[in-house]
């Protein structure tokens, strides 16, 4: 089974809050100094799911990442985990694209890759948590979509997708090819192996630009964005501690519940 996985590079979500800085003017997150960005954890789980399918059915895994050439380290991480090919898509015209444009660019790249049975994306990117790109890719390519997958298998020539819901799961069968977004219930992604790292670091990562994927650059970048970010700021949090003292515990409990209701906490 041939699989395309879309992966994104994000600032390391494990950084201490003190290192998280914003540039209010440009409305951007300032990359923390000395802490390299990482692959979005949900995307890493998408790679893991792809590898499980490859372990079972064979085939080829192609990883697509949209960003700068520096993003090739993310593609290499996926190769070291066991993916077969990594491609970076980058161009000035793609900078500051919104989710809609990003999905457009990725859809064009997927068309260029050509043969595939399945496109996997993480359920959302852990930086902005929008969770739009996978769904829009499916729309652009006219393919069936299942979101929040925990497992994918093949049965009778179709994909069988286990989808996470609150307190349980659903099982869908969808024709091949399809787009599936992957949830964290997939479990811990495998670590790259030593042999994987050696072979990945020797590989060249091809870089695709506007022309390579026949993209219309008027549909990308800040000018094509369908919505504008108005303000970006770290909210100031005020902490207040109120101690409720009453004659009896029962009275104090009632007062506590009333206070919480008034504060909208329960």
């Amino acid at each position: 089974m041939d699989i395309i996985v879309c992966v994104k590079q994000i600032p390391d979500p494990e950084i201490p809050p003190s290192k998280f800085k914003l540039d209010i003017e440009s409305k951007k997150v300032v990359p923390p100094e000395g802490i390299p960005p990482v692959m979005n954890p949900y995307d890493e789980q998408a790679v893991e799911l792809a590898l499980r399918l490859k372990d079972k059915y064979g085939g080829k895994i192609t990883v697509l990442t949209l960003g700068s050439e520096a993003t090739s380290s993310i593609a290499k991480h996926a190769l070291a985990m066991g993916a077969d090919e990594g491609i970076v898509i980058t161009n000035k015209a793609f900078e500051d694209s919104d989710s809609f444009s990003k999905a457009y660019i990725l859809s064009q790249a997927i068309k260029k890759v050509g043969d595939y049975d399945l496109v996997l994306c993480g359920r959302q990117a852990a930086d902005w948590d929008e969770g739009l790109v996978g769904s829009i890719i499916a729309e652009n390519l006219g393919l069936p979509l299942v979101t929040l997958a925990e497992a994918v298998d093949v049965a009778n020539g179709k994909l069988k997708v286990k989808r996470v819901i609150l307190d349980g799961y659903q099982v869908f069968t969808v024709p091949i090819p399809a787009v599936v977004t992957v949830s964290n219930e997939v479990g811990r992604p495998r670590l790259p192996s030593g042999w994987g790292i050696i072979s990945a670091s020797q590989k060249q990562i091809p870089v695709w630009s506007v022309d390579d994927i026949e993209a219309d650059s008027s549909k990308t970048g800040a000018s094509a964005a369908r919505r504008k970010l108005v303000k970006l700021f770290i909210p100031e949090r005020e902490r207040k501690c109120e101690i409720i003292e009453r004659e009896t515990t029962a009275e104090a409990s009632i007062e506590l519940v009333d206070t919480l209701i008034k504060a909208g906490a329960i």
Partner: protein
Amino acid sequence: MDFELTEEQRMFHDMARKFAEQEILPTLKENERQEKFDPGIIKKMASQGLLAPHMPKEYGGLGLDYITSAIIWEQLCGASLSVTQAAVSGPIQPATNLLDAGTEEQKKKYLPPVCKGESIMSGAVVEPTAGSDSSMIETVARRSGNRWIINGTKIFITNGEIADVVLFIAQTDKSKGLKGLASFIVERDTPGFSSTPLKGKISWRGGSEGTLRFTDMELPLENQVGEIGGALRDALRGIDTARLFLAAGAVGLAQSCLEASIKYAKERVQFGKPIGGHQLIQEIIAKMATKVDAARWLTYRAADLKSRGIRHIKEMSYAKYFSTEAALWIASQAVKIHGSFGTIDDYPVGHHYQDAITATILGGTAQMHQLTIGQQLLEMAAFR
């Protein structure tokens, strides 16, 4: 000169660190309490490609240079130096020794299973009366027809209790002193071979050592490794790699102590502010960080010389001596910064503190390395 890690080194760094967090840390506390080493970690490291980074690919290693290998060892030992040492010591000390001194047949037979984690190998030099001074080795190898008959005892042998195969040194002719020493290889099921585990340790409790006894143990002639008289020189080649491992491991241990101390010093509030805000604590942190950095670059420099095949006796001694002594000081300061909490095994610093003292002893004591450096600089030996 370039002080940046390559992309490949960065990937190994990150992978080894995550592996250590996922596979070593979760069981460390319980295993140390029980003085237990779980050999399962050897297979896990092997399947991850972490067991024998420095060994050639044809014998089951990754064929990496020594800086990259040191980066891997540093990260693994950031979780536990003793557990990592027990896991990787076969491919490090006896295997590099065999790689240099063994016949092609011996290498093909023993090295791939050791590098793939299918067989555990020990290297046995030290005896009750022969520690730093190998001329005192009393294990005797007596030639009888087409056999060697071996009698003797080896102590403090890493994995001595669980090894499948042991590369050891014995005396073939006492009158020849060091020139009479020869190396041999023995498999556990050989009659006359027995072992007992070492228990009651106050340090290195996650590791694994044992005592070996050879009683009228018969070996075929082809089990001799290298030439008679060359055993110590051959063993020192393996020990050189073990020294690099210990230097790198001490850096990992020290880095972990530094990170834990910085974190704790920011969180723990006394006298109205985080303790890190007190100047005396900042002095300790500054000294720790400077020593970690110095130890790391001494280690990488020795590793670089070793990779390039340049003579590096003095530089390896600088690295092993300085890194392990710095790690011991840093670990002790880290415990103090943690106060009483540092003395219980819920925090990483307590584990490291226990291990750090032993790191200064095996692979050559601090004094042996000082004497080696002195000998190199003064062109005079002061060992005896």
